[in-house]
C-alpha cells in the first residue's frame, strides 16, 4: 500500500486509475449482461402478467377467487385462455355489473392494453385458446354461402337465421350478432362464453369460422339485400304477422272511420 500511496502523484497515475475503472466497469458489464439478455424475451411478458395480476386482484378476484380458482360467484378461470378474456373484457361483459341469469354486453371498462395484461395473467394460470391473430379471423377469400350453411347448422338455433338473437330459458338469451367485431365472433366460437357451447378448431376448423364470420358480415352490413322489403327486426313470421295486424288492420280501421265520419251532405251539420 505504501508503494501505491507513494506513486499516487505519478504523472501516469490518473491514466492507470482510468484504465482500471474502465476494466472494472467492462468486467461488471460482462458479468451481468448475459443474464439480462436472457430475461429480455420474457420480461415484457412477465411485466404484463404482473400488471395483469394487479388488475385482476382489484377487479376480478372477488368473484373468480384470488388465484383464478373460481368461487361460488364466478367460474374458475384456469385454462380458459387469453381468447376468453379478450372476449369477455373486450365486449364489456366482464367485469359483471351484477349477478343474474346472463351478463349482458356493455361499455367496456378496461383499455385494450389492460385487457391484454389481464389476458396474459389468465393464460399464465393454464393453457387455453389464444387470442386469434388478424389472419385467423380475416374473411378474405371466405365462402359466404358455405358460411350460411354452417351458421344454420351450428348457430341459427339460438342466434336466429340472420343472427338477430333469441330467447333461451330462465332469462338467458342468445344476443344479437349485429355489430359484433370479427375478432369477438371468432373468440366466441372458440371459447363458448357463458352458456354458449364452444366450437373448437377440432370440430369447426379455422376456415369454417371465417366462412361463418363472412356470412354474418354479409347479412348484417348496410348493403345487405332484403328481397322481401322491410326486415321488421328479422325475427320471422311472428313479428311480421303482428305488424300486419296492428299497422295494416289499424290503417284500414282508421280509413273506414275517416270515410264514415265525413258527411256527403250539401248542408254540413
Amino acid at each position, binding site marked *: 500500500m505504501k508503494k501505491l500511496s507513494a506513486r499516487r502523484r505519478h504523472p501516469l497515475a490518473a491514466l492507470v486509475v482510468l484504465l482500471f475503472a474502465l476494466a472494472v466497469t467492462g468486467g461488471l458489464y460482462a458479468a451481468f449482461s448475459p443474464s439480462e439478455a436472457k430475461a429480455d424475451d420474457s420480461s415484457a411478458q412477465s411485466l404484463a402478467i404482473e400488471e395483469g395480476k394487479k388488475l385482476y386482484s382489484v377487479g376480478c378476484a372477488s368473484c373468480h377467487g384470488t388465484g383464478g380458482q373460481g368461487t361460488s360467484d364466478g367460474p374458475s378461470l384456469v385454462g380458459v385462455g387469453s381468447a376468453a378474456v379478450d372476449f369477455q373484457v373486450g365486449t364489456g361483459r366482464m367485469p359483471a355489473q351484477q349477478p343474474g341469469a346472463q351478463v349482458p354486453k356493455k361499455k367496456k371498462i378496461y383499455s385494450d392494453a389492460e385487457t391484454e395484461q389481464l389476458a396474459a395473467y389468465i393464460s399464465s394460470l393454464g393453457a387455453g385458446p389464444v387470442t386469434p391473430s388478424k389472419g385467423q379471423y380475416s374473411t378474405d377469400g371466405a365462402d359466404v354461402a358455405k358460411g350460411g350453411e354452417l351458421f344454420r347448422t351450428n348457430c341459427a338455433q339460438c342466434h336466429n337465421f340472420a343472427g338477430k338473437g333469441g330467447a333461451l330459458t330462465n332469462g338467458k338469451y342468445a344476443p344479437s350478432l349485429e355489430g359484433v367485431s370479427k375478432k369477438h365472433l371468432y373468440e366466441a366460437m372458440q371459447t363458448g362464453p357463458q*352458456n*354458449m357451447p364452444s366450437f373448437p378448431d377440432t370440430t369447426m376448423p379455422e376456415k369454417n369460422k371465417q366462412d361463418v364470420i363472412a356470412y354474418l358480415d354479409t347479412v348484417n352490413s348496410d348493403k345487405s339485400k332484403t*328481397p322481401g*322489403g322491410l*326486415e321488421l327486426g328479422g325475427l320471422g313470421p311472428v313479428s311480421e304477422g303482428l305488424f300486419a295486424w296492428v299497422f295494416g288492420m289499424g290503417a284500414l280501421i282508421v280509413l273506414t272511420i275517416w270515410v264514415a265520419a265525413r258527411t256527403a251532405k250539401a248542408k254540413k251539420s
Partner: protein
Amino acid sequence: MSSHEISEAEEKLPEERAQGGATAVAEDPFADPGLPEHEHRQQDIDERAAQRSERTVALLFTVSMLATIAFIASYVALPVDKYIYVFPIGHISALNFALGVTLGIALFAIGAGAVHWARTLMSDVEVADERHAIEASPEVKAKVLEDFRTGAQESGFGRRKLARNTLFGALALVPLSGVVLLRDLGPLPGTKLRHTTWAKGKRLMNYNTMQPLRPEDISVGSLTFAMPEGMTEEDHDFQTEIAKAALMLVRLQPDNIKDKRELDWSHDGIVAFSKICTHVGCPINLYEQQTHHVLCPCHQSTFDLSDGGRVIFGPAGHALPQLRIKANDQGYLEAMGDFSEPVGPAYWERG
C-alpha cells in the same frame, strides 16, 4: 238536457220534483220520432257536381287499370336479381317492390272508386222496411204437416222396415269407398319410423367437415353435430334419413352424469343424443353448456343431457333417445347400434 237544467231539478225536494216531473214527461216518451228529413247532397242538387264525381270515380278506376298494366309490365320487364335502394325499406328487390306497389294501387283504386261512387252518386234516400212476423199462418202450417204425414205413409217408410234398414246400411257404407282410396296416397310407413341409418360400427361424421370424429376432438362445453358414415347430401333419400339420424354430441365431466345408463353409453363423458325433439320432431339443439340443458325452439321442451335426456319442462312426453357410442381400434367414435327406441315424436305404436 243541459247541466243547468239538471242542477235546477236536483235542488228541488223530492215531492216538488215529482210534481215538476209529471208535467215534463210527455204523453208517450217512446213515440217513434220517424225518419229525419232527408237532406240532399251537392251531387243531388247540382248536376255539374255529379259529373265531377263521376269523373273522379272514372279516374280512380282508370288508375287501377293502368296499375294493373304496370304490374304485368314490371313482371315481364324487371329481372329477378335487380336490387334498388328505397328509403326506409333498404336494398329491396326491384321486382318485388314494383309488383307490390302496382298491385296495391290497382286494388286500392278499385275500392276507393267504389266507395266514392256509392257515397256521392248512388241514391242515399233513407228507406224504412217494416218487420213482419216470421211465423207462417196456421193454415199453411197445418197443410205442410198434413202433406208430410201423407208422404211418409205413402212411401211405406214406417211399414217396410227391411227396405228402410238396408237403405240406411247402403248410405252408411258408400262413403267408405272414398276413404279406401286414400290408401293410395303412399306406401304404408311400415317400420320406417322405428329405425334410423345408425348401425353397429358406423362412424360418427362431423357435420361441418364430413370427417370422422375422434374423442379428443370434442372438448367439454362444446357442441358438435354428427351424421352416420356413408351418407352424402346428394343421396336421393338424404333429407328423409337425416331427419331421423341427426345427432348431437356434447362432452360432460363423467362425474356430472347423473344417469347410470347414460354414463354406460357414453365414451369418456362424450354423450350422443338424437337431435329430434320427442314432442313433434323439431330439431332441438339450443344447448346451454353450463346447465347441460337443451331447449326445443318450437314448444320450449327442455331436456337435461346430464340426466339421460330427461324432460324437465315442456310438452315432450319422452326422454331424448341416446345413441350408444365407443371409440374403435383406430380411435374414431362409432355407434354400437341403432337408437334403442324410435326417435322423434311420440306416436301411437311407439315401442
